[in-house]
Structures are given as C-alpha cells and as structure tokens.
C-alpha cells in the first residue's frame, strides 16, 4: 500500500516535469467527388485540422487523399453528403498518433476533468 501511494506521488511530479503531451489518432481519408466540389472539400479539410496529401483524377471524378484527426471526422459522412448533394463518397482508416496542439489539448482535458472528479 505505501509503495503504491509512493509510486503515484512520483508519477504526479515526474510526468509533469517531463513535458507531457496528448496524442490523438490521425486518419487517412480518401474522398471521391465530382470536379466542382474539389475546392469545397479541400477548404473543409483545412477547417478540420487536416492536410491534403494528394489528388488524382479518375475520369470526371477527383480523389482527394488527406489526413485528419479522428476527433474531427465523426460527422464527416453527413457533412460530405450535404456539401456535395450526396455525390461525394469517402473511406477512412487509422494511420498513426500525433501530438494534439496545446490549445486543443487543454480544452479536451478540461472537458473531461469534471467527469473524472465525479468518478474518483
């Protein structure tokens, strides 16, 4: 018991001294849309902390490859459908973890803090 508590005390201090950061899953996203929606789709990725990795033309369709945090992608099926009047489709898979920007990490942690205190 005492060692358990001692270990926790060490953790609290040690980790804060070691520049802790939050990591979040980043997804590989592939969006297929008709030409005229390219601009909208790419602009939208900017607003969801995404980055465009490449583009390819497939006949009348354009395939946009991008990476974006999972946290920003939960409603993408609905957003893409309304942005392209249903013509766009996409697929998404996990790529890797990346550091969450500090300002966003702060918000995420604050949002969960309350819940956590209730639990303890």
């Amino acid at each position: 018991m005492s060692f358990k508590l001692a270990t926790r005390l060490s953790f609290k201090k040690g980790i804060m001294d070691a520049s802790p950061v939050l990591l979040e899953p980043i997804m590989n996203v592939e969006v297929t849309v008709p030409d005229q929606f390219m601009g909208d789709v790419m602009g939208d990725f900017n607003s969801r902390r995404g980055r465009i990795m490449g583009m390819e033309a497939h006949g009348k369709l354009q395939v946009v490859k991008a990476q974006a945090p999972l946290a920003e992608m939960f409603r993408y099926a609905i957003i893409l459908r309304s942005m392209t009047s249903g013509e766009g489709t996409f697929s998404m898979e996990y790529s890797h973890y990346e550091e969450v920007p500090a300002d966003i990490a702060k918000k995420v942690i604050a949002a969960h803090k309350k819940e956590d205190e209730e639990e303890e």
Partner: protein
Amino acid sequence: MGARQPENTRSFALCAHGGAGKTSLAEAMLFCNGQTTRMGVVQNGNTVSDFQSEEQKRQISISTSLLTLERKGKMLFALDAPGFADFTGEMSAAIRVADTAVILVSAVGGIEVQTSRAWEYAEHHNAPVTFYISKMDRENADFDKVLADIKDQFSPNALPVFLPIGSAEKLKGIVDVIKNKAYLYNLDGTGKFTEAEVPADMADAAAKAHEALVEAAVEMDDELMEKYLEGESISDQDFIRTLKKAIASKRIMPVLTGSATQNVGVHQMLDFITDYFPSPVDIGAIEAFDGDNKVEVLPDVNAPFSALCFKVMVDPYVGKLSFIRAYSGTLSSEGTNIYNVKKGDDERISSFKLMCGKDGKDVKEIIAGDIVAIPKLQSTKVGHTLATKGGAGYLFPHIEFPKPVYSVAVVAKTRADEDKMGNAISKTLEEDRSLTFEKNPETHDNVLSGMGDMHIDIVLSRMKERYGIELETKTPQVPYRETIRKTAEAQGKHKKQSGGHGQYGDVYIRYSPLERGAGFEFVDSIKGGAVPNNFIPAVERTSRVHGVRSFSRLPGCRFQSRIIFWKLSRS
C-alpha cells in the same frame, strides 16, 4: 405447377434514387396482374413492398422487398430495392441476384445521385439494363429531356420502346414502338385501356424509334445484318429473336415509360418484361469457385442444386427468413436438407416461400433461376452458398457491402436494456450487412457503425420496436494517448504514522520518452538484492494502472513512455 423451366423465369431489380417511384410501380404491377384488388399508396403506408413499420412511418423503402408475379405461364420475381444512399448495399445485392436491372428515372427529377450509383452497380455486375422514365403524369414531366440525359450520361444503347402520348395532366397513354400500337388510358387509376392506332402526330417518332431498334438488333446476327444493309426487310420473327439477344447483351437498353400511380402503361410493361427480359438461360453461365478453380454454373434443372443467400430478414412474428436465388438444379422441400457449403452445416428445410412483400405462399419445388425465401435456417448468412450435401461443392463470390462510414457510441438506457443489448444487436447485424458493432478496447465505447445518420436512426428505432430495447447515442470518444517529450526523475515518498503501525514507502522513478508507437515499458533497474523483491510488483502494477490515467486523466488514455524504476528504499 407442372414441370417449370428456367426459360419461363424473369427476375429484375427495381432500382433508382429514393422517391423515383419503384414501390409505386411494383404496387401497380401487382394490381394489373390481378394479385391485389386495390392499389396501395406509399403515403398511406399500405403498399405491399413497404410493409415494415419503419418504412410506413417514414414513407420510404429501407430494405429490399421480393414480389412474385405469375403471368402468362411465366414466373416474375421483382426486387424492390431501397433508393436512399444509406442503403446502397441492399441495392447492389438486389442487382447482383436479379437477371435485369430496371433503373427508374423520374420524368420530373431526372438523373440523380443514386440513379448513377444504380447504373454503376449494373455495370459492375454486368446486368442487362432497362430504363423506366417514371411519373409521366406529373406537371413538368419531360420524357425527351430525360431520355437525352440517359443516352448522354449512361449509354447511347438506351433506345425507347415506349413513347408517352402527351404528358402531365394530358397524358393519354403510351405507344409501343415494337408492336406499333397505341394504348389509351383514362387517368383514373383503374388501369383499363384500349388498343388503338398510333396517333398521326406520333407516327414519325414511332417509326424512327422502331427503326433504331431494328438497326441495333440485327447487329446480333451477321447474316441478318447484311440483309438489312442491303435494304431487305426483316421479318418480325427475326427482329424479335435478335432484339431479345440485344437486350440480354446490353446492345439495347430498352426505355419504357408510364405512370405508376395513375396506372398508365403498366400492363404493357409487364408484357414487355414477360416477352423480352432475359431468362436465366439467356444470361447463361454464372461464375463460382471450387477452391481456386473457376467453375461455370449453368441454369440447368438437372444439375446439382446451388443457390446464394442474399438477404436475411428477422421478423418477430414470422421468425427468420433467408432469401435465396437458385442458380442451378432443382430442389424439393419434402424430406430434403439444404447444405451450407461455406459452414459445412446441413439444415432442414421446412418450406420454400414465393414472397409477395411480407406474405409467403408455400411451394414444393424450386428450380434454377427462382428467388424465394426459406424460413428458419439457422447458420445461413448473407453471401453463403447453399447446395445439397455431396452435391455442388463450389462457392459463389461473396456479396460485397459498402464499408460503414458513420459511427456512434451506444449506451443502454437502463440495466434491463443493457442485458438485452447483445442479443438485439447480433440479430440486427445478421439482417443488415452494412452495419458493424465493436467494443473499442481503449475507450470501452460500444461503437455502432453504419452508412449514415438515417441508417443508424432506423436501426435503433427498429431495435426498440422489435426487442423493446432503448439505446442512447453519443459521439464516440477519441482514444487519446499521452507521452512525454523529455526525461525527468521524481521521488515519491509516502509516510504515515497511525497508531503503532508505521507506513513508509519511498521510490525513485525516471520517466523517459520512447520512439513513436513503442508503447509502454517498465524497467526495474534496482541492483539485485538491494530491496526485498516483493515490493517491486506493487510499483510496477501501479505504474501501469497509473500510466493509463496520468496527466490528462482522460478515460482509457494510454501512456506511452519508459518508466525506469531505479531506487526504492524502506526504513
């Protein structure tokens, strides 16, 4: 029924953008064929196809319905597939198992997103296509424009077989350019018509359309083609023979038209389907696999029986129904079992059902080409190949469903709901192949994924209705992790003097980052024998548990770094 032959079978999938009129057309077909005494209306929730309460509530089709029509000694199997984007998997499966894709395009709305998707699926499955320009009775109906768009966007092989006489409130009927006859209707929904000569002002257009069909049809026969090019006339018999061939091989994609709700042209459409749609024999061999070997399966009634399950419906009253398309052989329901080639299970058949919406009529024997339902099969799932034990040993390619793109976390409302959740979800998954369910190991969320918000919404209300279970949805949690960017050391000392018993623990731990993806590592670097070993596991366990919830204290957040435990002292 006598000895039925696959030559006398027609199957087709009605597919289109949601709202183009598929369900209404199916309803009119049943009525015209004398199988119903009254035409149901989608808005009134009393059509044969839309029998599920969610369909009636929302006035849209959600899952594929099977309708069986008997006409002039032929069996017609119609699949009314849902049109909305959330259910494209159902549409693709319907096109896969039907011999013809009937693509409806509204004369008012024209080509829409899901129309193009239906076209793509028909191309993908290499299915013969017939277009139907619907709703000719509606204001602003424009047959010519929609026909031009179909030719332009899909294929120049789209050639009109029916032409509308008038449009909107002036719709009078249709001209059949093969027969060169007009069929005149009263716009009263009764479907009563009279045959007449082609109206004088349409004679040119009808003759031109007829000529276009002849010109394309004769391409199917070199000799006939030469005759035609030399200006000889082509007999009706030759024309009809080659026309059928041209339709089966997609050289001609007939364009039909009419109005479903006003019941105009539906009789002629049924006759056209019966007379000209390809039978399973015209479609010919279907591909299957025996191990790595390709097998060609022919619709031969004397060959070993084989079929593909393309839909499973779980109804709380009827129980489970497995929908199958037979590709070869003959199977009787008396005293036979059906063998699931994929699972190796032998299952008893109670009956075969010729379906019409939710109602089934028992039939003793099925043959290659039939589309029927079998009640109460246990292990058979969508995509499984069925045969008889020791018979056909091949497998049909699996039915592909689109991957889910929209996820929610579901939470049971009450303890009772939680107990029922597993069962309700597994039953729902069996029916709906574009749905997945998974417990996220990090966030512990129960994640339900589907094709869109409407899909998930329907799934949840159906579960509530059928299994009495209420689930709330939340945005899934992100499985965050944490790491540190530099090395730090920290001592942790716990000391408590309570009563006679003293508690004391003093540890020194070094925290250092690992490379990306390397996870968590606990290193015990205490020199052997310096401290009693039995304290070390306590430190390690706490490190791991604490590591999971450290600085951010986010649920399920895994901490990734190296923890070097290097000193421990005890008084």
